[in-house]
C-alpha cells in the first residue's frame, strides 16, 4: 500500500472513482470533522427525500399514514444521501456516512419508542387523576360506573405491602449472597453465580406458578399478599444480588486490607468496613430491585388474586395491587368507563417506576463524586464487571484462584487504565448501576 498517511487539509476534490478513496485521509483520521459540504449533502438529501415522498404519498397516491410515510422517507433519504456522497466523496465515505445515519436513526427510533410510551400513558392517564382516585377503592364501583368514580387506594396499599414484604425477604438474602460471592468466595461461588444468573432468567409467570404450586396446591392456602411477596422476591433476588455484588467490588481492597491488618476478623471487616462503605450502593440495589418487580403482573394472578375492596392484611385474603388493577380495568373489563381508569393507574405506576429509577441514579451518583479522584483512578469494576474475570485474559486463572481464603485483591490499574484511556475515556464513568 503506497498511500502516505498525512493529514492533508485539502477538501477532497471530487476526483471520483473507487481507487481514489484511499487518498482521502481528512475524514478518516478525524472521524468527527463535519464540513459545510457534509451538511449540505445531509440536509439536501433529507429535503429531496421529503419532496419525493410528499409527491408520492401526498399527491400521486394519497395514503393517510404518517408511519408508512416516514419509513418511506427514511429509505428514500438513505438512497439519495448515498448517491450524493458517492459522487462527491467516493464509495467508502458514502458507505461510512450512510451507516452513521442508519445507526443514529435506529438509536433515535428506540428513544422515540421510550418517549412515546411515556407521553402516551401520560396523555391518556392524566385526565382522570384526582384526589378521590387515590383515596377511593373499587368496592362500590362496578365496570359500568363512570370513570370519575372509584380509585386505587386498595391497590396502592396492596402494592406497598407486597413490595415491602418482598424487600424484607430478598434484600438480606441478596446482600448475603453478594457478600458470599465477593467477600467469602470458595469452591461453590462459581456455581452460585451461575444460579443467580439462571434465576434472573426465570420467567415471572413461572415464579407465580411455583408459589401457587407450593402454597395453594401444596399447603392449601388461599390467595394472599404474602404469597405475592414470595413470588416477587424470587424475581427481585437476582437484581439485588447482582447490583450489590457490583457495588461490593467497588469497595477498595485497601480498606479490607487495613481492617484485616488491624486484626479484625473477616466478619467484622465485612460488617463494619465493607458494607458501610457500600451502603448507598446497596440502597441503589434495593431500589432497582423494587423497580424491577413493582410492575410485575403475571405472578400476581396466581398469588395475590386481586380484589376490588381494601384488604390491609397481607397475610390473609386476596389483595389488589396496582398492576393487577390496571390489567383488570384495561384488559378484563375493557369498556369506555374502565379503560381511562386503567390508564390513570398506569400513569401512577409509570411515575412510581420513574421516580424509583431516578432516585437510584441520584443516590448512586454522589458516590462517584465524593470518592472523587482516588476512585476514579482505580480500575472501575462496575461497568466492566467481567473484568475480574476479564483480567483472566491476562492472568489465566484469576477466577479459579479465588480460593476459600480470599486475599485482599491487588489490582493492576495500569492494564485496565491503558485499555480504557484510548477506547472510551468517559463512558465507563459513574455507571455503577
Amino acid at each position: 500500500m503506497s498511500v502516505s498517511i498525512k493529514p492533508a487539509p485539502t477538501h477532497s476534490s471530487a476526483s471520483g472513482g473507487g481507487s481514489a478513496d484511499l487518498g482521502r485521509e481528512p475524514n478518516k483520521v478525524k472521524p468527527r470533522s463535519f464540513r459545510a459540504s457534509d451538511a449540505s449533502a445531509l440536509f439536501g438529501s433529507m429535503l429531496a427525500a421529503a419532496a419525493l415522498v410528499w409527491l408520492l404519498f401526498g399527491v400521486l397516491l394519497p395514503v393517510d399514514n404518517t408511519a408508512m410515510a416516514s419509513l418511506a422517507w427514511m429509505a428514500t433519504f438513505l438512497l439519495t444521501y448515498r448517491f450524493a456522497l458517492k459522487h462527491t466523496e467516493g464509495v467508502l465515505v458514502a458507505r461510512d456516512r450512510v451507516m452513521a445515519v442508519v445507526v443514529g436513526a435506529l438509536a433515535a427510533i428506540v428513544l422515540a419508542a421510550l418517549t412515546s410510551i411515556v407521553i402516551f400513558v401520560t396523555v391518556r392517564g392524566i385526565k382522570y387523576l384526582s384526589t378521590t382516585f387515590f383515596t377511593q377503592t373499587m368496592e362500590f364501583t362496578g365496570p359500568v360506573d363512570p370513570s370519575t368514580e372509584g380509585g386505587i387506594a386498595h391497590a396502592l396499599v396492596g402494592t406497598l405491602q407486597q413490595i415491602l414484604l418482598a424487600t424484607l425477604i430478598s434484600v438480606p438474602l441478596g446482600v448475603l449472597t453478594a457478600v458470599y460471592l465477593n467477600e467469602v468466595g470458595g469452591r461453590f461461588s462459581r456455581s452460585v453465580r451461575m444460579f443467580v444468573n439462571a434465576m434472573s432468567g426465570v420467567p415471572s409467570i413461572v415464579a407465580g406458578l411455583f408459589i401457587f404450586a407450593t402454597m395453594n396446591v401444596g399447603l392449601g392456602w388461599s390467595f394472599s399478599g404474602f404469597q405475592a411477596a414470595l413470588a416477587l422476591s424470587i424475581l427481585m433476588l437476582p437484581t439485588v444480588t447482582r447490583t450489590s455484588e457490583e457495588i461490593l467490588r467497588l469497595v477498595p481492597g485497601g480498606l479490607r486490607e487495613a481492617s484485616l491488618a488491624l486484626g479484625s476478623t473477616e466478619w467484622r471487616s465485612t460488617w463494619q468496613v465493607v458494607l458501610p462503605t457500600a451502603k448507598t450502593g446497596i440502597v441503589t440495589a434495593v431500589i432497582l430491585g423494587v423497580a424491577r418487580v413493582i410492575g410485575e403482573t403475571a405472578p400476581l394472578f396466581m398469588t395475590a388474586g386481586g380484589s376490588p375492596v381494601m384488604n390491609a392484611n397481607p397475610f390473609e385474603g386476596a389483595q389488589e395491587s396496582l398492576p393487577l388493577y390496571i390489567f383488570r380495568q384495561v384488559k378484563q373489563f375493557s369498556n369506555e368507563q374502565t379503560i381511562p381508569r386503567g390508564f390513570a393507574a398506569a400513569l401512577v405506576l409509570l411515575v412510581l417506576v420513574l421516580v424509583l429509577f431516578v432516585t437510584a441514579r441520584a443516590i448512586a451518583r454522589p458516590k462517584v463524586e465524593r470518592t472523587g479522584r482516588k476512585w476514579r483512578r482505580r480500575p472501575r469494576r462496575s461497568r466492566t464487571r467481567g473484568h475480574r474475570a476479564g483480567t483472566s485474559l491476562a492472568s489465566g486463572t484469576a477466577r479459579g484462584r479465588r480460593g476459600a481464603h480470599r486475599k485482599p485483591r491487588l489490582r493492576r490499574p495500569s492494564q485496565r487504565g491503558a485499555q480504557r484511556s484510548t477506547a472510551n475515556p468517559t463512558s465507563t464513568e459513574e455507571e455503577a448501576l
Partner: protein
Amino acid sequence: MGDLIFRGVARTAGFTVGFVLFLIGLFLLIRAIPALQSEGFSFLTTFEWTSETFGIGAILYWTVVIALVALVVAVPMAIAVALFIVEYAPPRLRKLFTSLIDLLAAVPSLIFGIWGFYYLQPKIIPLSRWLSERFSFIPIFASERGLFSSSAFIAGVVVSLMVLPITTAVIREVFSRVPPGEKEAALALGATRWGMIRTVVLPFGRGGIIGGAMLGLGRALGETIAVYIIISPIFTISPRILDLGANSIAAHIALRFGEAAADPQQLSGLMAAGLVLFLVTLGVNAVASVVVGRSRSAKGVEL
C-alpha cells in the same frame, strides 16, 4: 469462630438461590405429573387445549415465532444502539443514552402491553397490510382473512423493545472492550469509521452479539403480560405472522389460570406448560453463557 458462622451464613444464602431454583423445577414437575401421565408425549404435539385433551404444540410454536420476530427486530437495533453508544455518540450523550436504555428496561411489561395494544397496533396494521399485499408470495407475509390486529408480528415488535435493553447491555459491554490498538490500526490503514467497525468491532464482538441475542431470546420466550394483552389466542399453526391470532406459553398460562384453578387436571397441564417454559428458558440462558464464555471478546462478560 465468628468467621466460621459468618461464612456459613453467607454460604447458606448463596445456596438458597440454587435451592429455590431446584425447588421451582421440582414442584412444577410434581404438579405436572398427572397431566404428563394422562397425555404422555402427545402433550408436546397436541394442538388443542380443552379440559379433556390438551397439549402445547401450537402454543409452543407461536411462542417461538413471537420470540423470533422479537429477535429479528431487536438484534439489529441493539447492535445499532450499542454502536451508537460506544462509537458514535459524543461522551456526554453516551451516558445519557445508556441511562435511557436502562430506563427502557425498567418500564413494566404491563405498560409495554397497553402501549403496544392501544398505540402501536394502529400504526403497525397499515404496514402489515402493505407487506401482505406486496409480498403475499412469501408465506410468512401472506394473509388469510385480511385481519392484521393482535398478530404475532405486533406482539413480536413489542417484545423486541422489551428485550432490547438486555441485549444492548451485553453487546455494548463487548464493543467497549475492543482493543483500541486494533481499532487504531484500522483507522491508520485508512479505514473510515464504518470500515473500522465492520472489520474490527463487529468481528470482535460476534460472541457478544450471539450471546446477547440468546439472552434476549430467553427473555422473549418468557414474556407474559404484554403478549397476553396483544394477541388473541389460537390453537392452530401457520406461517402467517401478520394474521390475526397467536399464542404463547406464558400468556396461555395467565389466560387459562382462572378457569383451571378449579380443574385439577387442567391445572396440572398448565404446570406442565410452565415446566416446559422453565426448562426452555434455562436451556437458552445456559447456551447463551456458554457461547459468551467461549468467545474471545466476551470472555468474562456476565450475563
